[in-house]
């Protein structure tokens, strides 16, 4: 039997071979992936360390050295990278002054610095991340976006996204020309007095639809009926027609009845 099998593989050879193969691939994968995750986590912690410095120098006055909040500013535990990216990316933070509402202004930091602070804040406690690119390209269902916008957003932001007044000096800002990323982040984090529309309320696809509606409106609808007078609805339009429309009618009536010289 042993002679007959000379030159052939031992019966256990296949098993051994499979074992060796599995172990080597598994080991190599484990080794590679640990190095990879180690790399990314060092990158992350480097960014977070950088972010902590920026935070300490610019944000800690109000939010506290550990971002736990003070009387002047809320705790940032769990607000997530999305919130940091929105607040700093639109220039709302750092605040210029304490008031009813932080206004949009040119951002004070580069996107890299903002990402570093975002990494630092999200290293403290988990929170919503910066949205994936696929939700932001405006390829969602525009009609469904309009319906969701009408039900959830239009009462404050106006059906054309032109914005509107709230109580005691607060306001819902205009959404026209706002980057898709920031619209998404605002929905998911609920900045300032805006309510939160988490993924359990409006799914990422719903949010993508709403963004698609707003972007469609920007590219297709603006200026359809000439000057939109700010898109603010009956107040601006009524004022215009009362002053200029009735003014013209009165002018013509006077001209009809006036005696020629």
């Amino acid at each position, binding site marked *: 039997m042993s002679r007959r099998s000379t030159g052939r593989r031992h019966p256990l050879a296949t098993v051994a071979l499979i074992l060796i193969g599995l172990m080597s691939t598994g080991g190599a994968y484990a080794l590679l992936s640990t190095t990879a995750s180690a790399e990314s986590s060092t990158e992350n912690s480097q960014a977070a360390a950088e972010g902590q410095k920026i935070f300490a120098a610019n944000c800690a006055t109000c939010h506290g050295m550990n971002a736990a909040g003070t009387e002047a500013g809320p705790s940032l535990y769990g607000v997530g990278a999305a919130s940091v990216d929105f607040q700093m990316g639109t220039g709302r933070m750092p605040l210029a002054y304490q008031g009813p509402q932080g206004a949009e202004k040119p951002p004070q930091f580069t996107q890299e610095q903002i990402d570093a602070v975002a990494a630092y804040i999200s290293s403290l406690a988990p929170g919503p991340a910066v949205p994936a690119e696929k939700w932001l390209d405006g390829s969602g269902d525009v009609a469904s976006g309009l319906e969701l916008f009408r039900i959830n957003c239009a*009462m404050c932001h106006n059906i054309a996204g032109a914005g*509107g007044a709230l*109580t005691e000096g607060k306001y819902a800002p205009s959404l026209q020309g706002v980057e898709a990323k920031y619209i998404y982040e605002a929905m998911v984090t609920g900045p300032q*007095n805006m*309510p*939160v529309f988490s993924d*359990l309320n409006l799914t990422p696809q719903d949010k993508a639809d709403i963004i698609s509606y707003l972007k469609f409106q920007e590219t297709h609808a603006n200026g359809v009926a000439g000057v939109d007078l700010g898109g603010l609805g009956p107040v601006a339009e009524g004022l215009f027609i009362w002053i200029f429309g009735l003014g013209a009618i009165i002018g013509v009536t006077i001209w*009809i009845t006036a005696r020629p010289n």
Partner: protein
Amino acid sequence: MAKKDSGNAESELATKNRPDLSAGTAVIASEVFQNPGMPPHHPRATDLDPKKEKVAARRVGGLFLFSILASVFAIVAYVIFPITPGDLSSVRLNNLFLGVGISLALLAIGIAAIYWAKNLMKDGEWSEPRHPTRGSEDTRAAAAEVFRLGNEESGFGRRTLIRRSLIGAVAVAPLPAVVMLRDLAPAANPAELMSKTIWAKGVRLTRDPDGTPIKASDVTVGSVFHVIPENLEDSEHKLEEKAKAAVILLRLDPQDMHVSAERKDWNYQGIVAYSKICTHVGCPVALAEQHTHHLLCPCHQSQFDISHEAKVIFGPAKRPLPQLPISVDADGYLVAQSDFHEPVGPSFWERP
């Protein structure tokens, strides 16, 4: 018929020559307003200067010609900018240029006609006395004769049965129309309709518009959900029912809430549901502020404080928004405990 500059004399006659008429109980002012008559006639520039007359005539002709051009422009624009189905901007261009052409054409005709009348047509002040409305004696006698003959031939005055039944029939004929006015009122008792919604014990709270049920765990602190009842889809008059049953669902930090004893069980871990219909005139109150817990009505600026059971803190609304008592069913979905405990929306006569 018109007599030039005769108004003055006529009206003097009218005020002075009737001393025989009794004033009755009317109060007559002692100083009757005197008709000042026509102002003195001023000739126009076009009457005096033939050159100016020519210019004015040319202007009128020019405007009519311009109107022709504008009409032609409208036709050309209609051809140049056709409506492509599905392309909104083509409709915009088509309507814009077509409309501009037509309106300029009509406007030019109108302006030209007025300019013509003002500057070139015969000038002068006119008054036209009214025609007397009373007919001549002959006409009146003929008319009376027609009536008399008609009465005699038909027997209208003589045949009392026919006359009275005819009057009765004509008087009763409009009554069906009067009865039909009943349909202007709702078929059922409106007070009852307005006092109840389709919320009931165990009805799930679902998302507007897709009707998916909401788990209590879906509603994170600071969230706002716009809610319709689960049974809305099955109801006969969907819009009417939605108009009464629309609800806004919010989750507050339970520490921020001031709950009265009898409403202790109406919220679920800080999740509260309030009627979205303003108690002032019924606009949807949906402008929610996350940190101040204010709800603002966009129509007349009524403000409700959700942390104080939707108490009115500003504006014309007189009552807080009705609260919908909620709890959670066995599967973790939010359900209503009952209907609202008071009628939603604005006041009505029969409201208790």
